[in-house]
C-alpha cells in the first residue's frame, strides 16, 4: 500500500504547482484595479502609488509569483488587503467552521442517500423506488438558497425552534453550535443525498445482477446478508470516491448556503475576496483548497485499498 500511496503523492506535487500558477494568473486577469477598491473614496494618487509599492503590484508578474510562492512555502500567505488580517489567521478562523458544516452535511447526506439508494435498488420498479427517486430528484432540483430561506421562515421565524442564521463555535457552546448548524447542514445534505442516492442505486443494481450475488442467494443466505455483506461492500467503491470528492467540494465552500445562513466559512470568504479584489486571500484559499482536494483523493485511494482486497495484490 505504501508504494502505491507514495506514487500518488509524487504525482500530486506538480499538480499543486500548476494550480498555484494558474490561480495566480487567473487573479491578475480579473478586470478592475484592486487599488481603486482599496484607496478610498477620494483615490489619493499618492496613496495609490504607496499601496502599489507595498503590495508589489508594480513588479513583473513572475517576480510577484515567486515572492508569493516563496512566502507560501514558509507558511506565510500574506495579509488581506481589505482587513489587514493575515490570510493564514483568516483560514485558521474559518477552517473549523467549514469542516463542521461539511461533516454535519455529510452525515445527513450519507444517512439519507445510501439507505435510500439501497432501498430503491432492491425494490426496483416498485412504488418505493419511484418515491425514492422523486425525493432524490427534488433534493437535487430545489435550489439551496430557496430551501434555506423557507426553512428559516418556517423553523426560526414561525416556530422559533432553531436560530435563523449565524455561527457559534463548538468550543463555546456545543449544543448551540450543533443547533445553529442543523439547518444549513440539512440543506446541503439533502442536495448531496440525492447524488449519493442515485449513484448507490445504479451501483447496487449492477452488483445485484452479478453472478456471485446469485450464487450467494443460491447458497441460501438470507436476503439481508446478501445485500448488506456481499452486494453493498462491492457497490460501495465508487460511492467512497464520490463521497470524498463531495466532501472536498463542501470544504471548498458552499457559497450560497453560507451566504443565506451567514456562516463565516471558506466559501463566503473567497467570494467576498474576489469581489473586493483581495488577491492574497483568494490565492491563499484556492491553494489550500486545492491541496485539500488532492488529500481527499489520496484518502479515497487509500479507502479503495481497504475496501477492495484485489487492489492489494497490485
Amino acid at each position, binding site marked *: 500500500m505504501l508504494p502505491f500511496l507514495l506514487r500518488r503523492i509524487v504525482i500530486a506535487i506538480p499538480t499543486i504547482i500548476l494550480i498555484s500558477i494558474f490561480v495566480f494568473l487567473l487573479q491578475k486577469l480579473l478586470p*478592475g484595479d484592486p487599488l481603486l477598491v482599496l484607496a478610498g473614496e477620494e*483615490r*489619493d494618487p499618492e*496613496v495609490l502609488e504607496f499601496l502599489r509599492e507595498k503590495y508589489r503590484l508594480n513588479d513583473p508578474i513572475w517576480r510577484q509569483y515567486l515572492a508569493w510562492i516563496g512566502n507560501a512555502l514558509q507558511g506565510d500567505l500574506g495579509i488581506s488587503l481589505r*482587513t489587514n488580517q493575515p490570510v493564514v489567521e483568516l483560514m485558521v478562523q474559518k477552517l473549523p467552521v467549514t469542516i463542521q458544516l461539511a461533516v454535519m452535511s455529510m452525515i445527513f447526506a450519507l444517512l439519507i442517500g445510501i439507505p435510500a439508494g439501497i432501498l430503491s435498488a432492491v425494490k426496483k420498479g416498485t412504488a418505493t423506488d419511484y418515491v425514492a427517486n422523486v425525493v432524490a430528484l427534488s433534493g437535487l432540483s430545489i435550489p439551496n438558497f430557496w430551501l434555506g430561506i423557507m426553512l*428559516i421562515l418556517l423553523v*426560526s421565524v414561525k416556530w422559533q425552534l432553531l436560530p*435563523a*442564521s449565524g455561527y457559534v463555535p463548538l468550543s463555546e457552546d456545543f449544543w448551540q453550535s450543533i443547533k445553529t448548524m442543523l439547518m444549513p447542514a440539512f440543506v446541503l445534505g439533502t442536495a448531496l443525498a440525492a447524488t449519493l442516492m442515485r449513484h448507490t442505486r445504479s451501483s447496487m443494481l449492477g452488483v445485484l445482477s452479478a453472478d456471485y450475488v446469485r450464487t450467494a442467494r443460491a447458497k441460501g443466505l438470507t436476503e439481508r446478508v446478501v445485500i448488506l455483506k456481499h452486494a453493498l461492500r462491492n457497490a460501495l467503491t465508487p460511492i467512497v470516491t464520490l463521497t470524498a470528492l463531495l466532501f472536498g467540494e463542501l470544504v471548498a465552500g458552499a457559497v450560497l448556503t453560507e451566504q443565506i445562513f451567514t456562516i463565516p466559512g471558506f466559501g463566503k470568504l473567497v467570494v467576498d475576496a474576489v469581489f*473586493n479584489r483581495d488577491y492574497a486571500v483568494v490565492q491563499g484559499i484556492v491553494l489550500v483548497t486545492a491541496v485539500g482536494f488532492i488529500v481527499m483523493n489520496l484518502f479515497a485511494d487509500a479507502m479503495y485499498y481497504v475496501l477492495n482486497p484485489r487492489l492489494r495484490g497490485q
Partner: protein
Amino acid sequence: MSHLKTAMISALLGATALTASPVVAKDLRIALQSDADVLDPDQSRTFVGRIVYTSLCDKLVDITPNLDIIPQLATEWTTSEDGTAITMQLREGVVFHDGTPFNAEAVAANIERSQTLDESRRKSELASITSTEVTGEYEIVLNLAGPDATLMAQLADRAGMMVSPTAAAEAGADFGLNPVCSGPFKFEERVAQDKIVLSKFDDYWNADEIHFDSVTFLPIPDTTVRLANLQSGDIDMIERLAATDLPQARAAENIVVDSAVSLGYQGITFNINNGEKGDNPWGNDKRLRQALSHAIDREALNQVVFDGAFAAGNQPFPSSSPWYNQSLPIEGADMEKAKALLAEAGYPDGISLEVQVPNSTEPLAVMQVVQAMAAEAGIDISLTSKEFATLLADQSAGDYTASQIGWSGRVDPDGNNHQFVTTDGGINDSKFSDPKVDELMNAARVASTTEERKALYDEAMVIMLDELPRLFLYHQTWIWAYNDALKGFTPYPDGMSVWKASPGKSDLAVPALPTGRRGVLNRGA
C-alpha cells in the same frame, strides 16, 4: 428572548429606575449589510466601518439630525477673524481604552497621523491644516492654509476620530487589528465575516449613558435573512432594510421601522472629456443629456422600483436638504421637450447610448426603468452590467460613455460637489470643466456664512443642471428596523443615528448607528 427584552427595557430606563439593573448580559446585536474593512479610522473606507466606529471611536465634534455641528471631544471652538486658525477647547477627564489620557497632545498626534501615515485615506480631508499648536493641556490651535468652511464637517467624521496615540505609535499601520479609541465601547474581538464584538468601556466620560454591556455587529448580506433574524429575535436591529421588505416589516409584531433620506444620490455620470471615449455625441452635446433628463419621470421611477420608499431627486442633495436649490424643482417627464432637444442636436430619429451599470439588483432595476422611459423619447439605451470594481476602474480610466453610479453623501455640501465637477477634482471622472463652476465651488469652500455659501451653490447648481455631467435620479432612504423593546432611536440623514436613554436626556445611550453608503466605493463593499 423575553429575558433579554426585559433586560434591555430596564437597561434603557435604567437612568430613571430606582432598582439596580438585573445582572443579565445585555448584548445589543446589530446586523450589517456587509463586513467592515480594516478598523482604523485613518485607513478605513467602507460605510459599515463607520457604523462600528460610532460605538467604538469618539470624534472631535458630532452632528445633529439637522446637520449642525455639536461638541463631542471638543467642547467649544472659535475661528480667528481671517479664518486661518481654529482654537479648540477639549473635554477634560477623557481617557482612551488603553488608559492613555486624551488631551491636546493626543489631538495633535492624531492629526499628524491622519496627514502623514502612508496608508492614510484622510489626507485630502485634512489638507487645509498646515500645523497644530498645543496651547494648553486641553487647548489646541489648528492653523489653516486659508479659510475652510468644510473642515468642521470633516472633523465630525473619520478624520475627526481620535485614536490612542500610544497604541497607534506601537501598532503603526496594523492599528486596525486591535483598534484603541475613546468611544463608549471598546474593541473585544473580530472574526472576519462573522462578528465584531465591542464591550462597554467603564471609564467612558459619559458612562452613565451606556445601557448595554456589549454590542455585537454581525454582517448578514441577504436582506430577507436579515429581516428573518430580526423577526426570530436573534438580532435586535438591522440596517438597510430593502424597500421591498417594508410591508412585511411593518406588518410584523414587535418590529419598529424608522427611516431617513440620505445625504447621497444616485444618478448617471457622463464621460464629457475623459480620454478618447469622451469625444462622443453624449459627451459633446449637452442637449442630448438634457433630452434624457426630460425623458425620465423620477417620481414614477421611485414608485416602480422602490415602492415610493426612496426620494426622487434632480440635484446632488435631496429636496429636503437646506442646500437644495428650490428654484430648480423636480419636473415630470416631458417627451415633447426631450424629442425637440434631440432634433435640435441633430438626432430627430433618435440616438443610442451605452450605460454601464453595477451588476446588482437595484441599479439594474433602476436602469431598466430608465431604459423604458428613454425609449419613448427615441433614446435607445443599452445596458452593460459590470461587477463594481471593474465598473469603477473603467470609469476612472475614461473607458465609458455613461455610468450609473452614486455617492453616499457628505455632511458638508462641498463633499457632494467639489471633487466631482471642478477641473482638478479628484474623482471628476467626467473630466467636466467649467471656469465659472470652479470659481463658485472654490468660493463656497472659503465663504464664512451659510447664506453666502448657499447662494454660491445655488448659482453653481444652475450651471450643473444645464450641463449635466451628472444626471441625478434619486436619493436612497436609510431604513432601519428594530425590536420594539428598544427605545429612543433617532435616525440621522447622514446615516448617523443615536439611541437616547429617554426623551430629554443627553445623547449617547448607545451611540450611533450610522447607515447608508458613505461613498461610491461602498456599494457592494
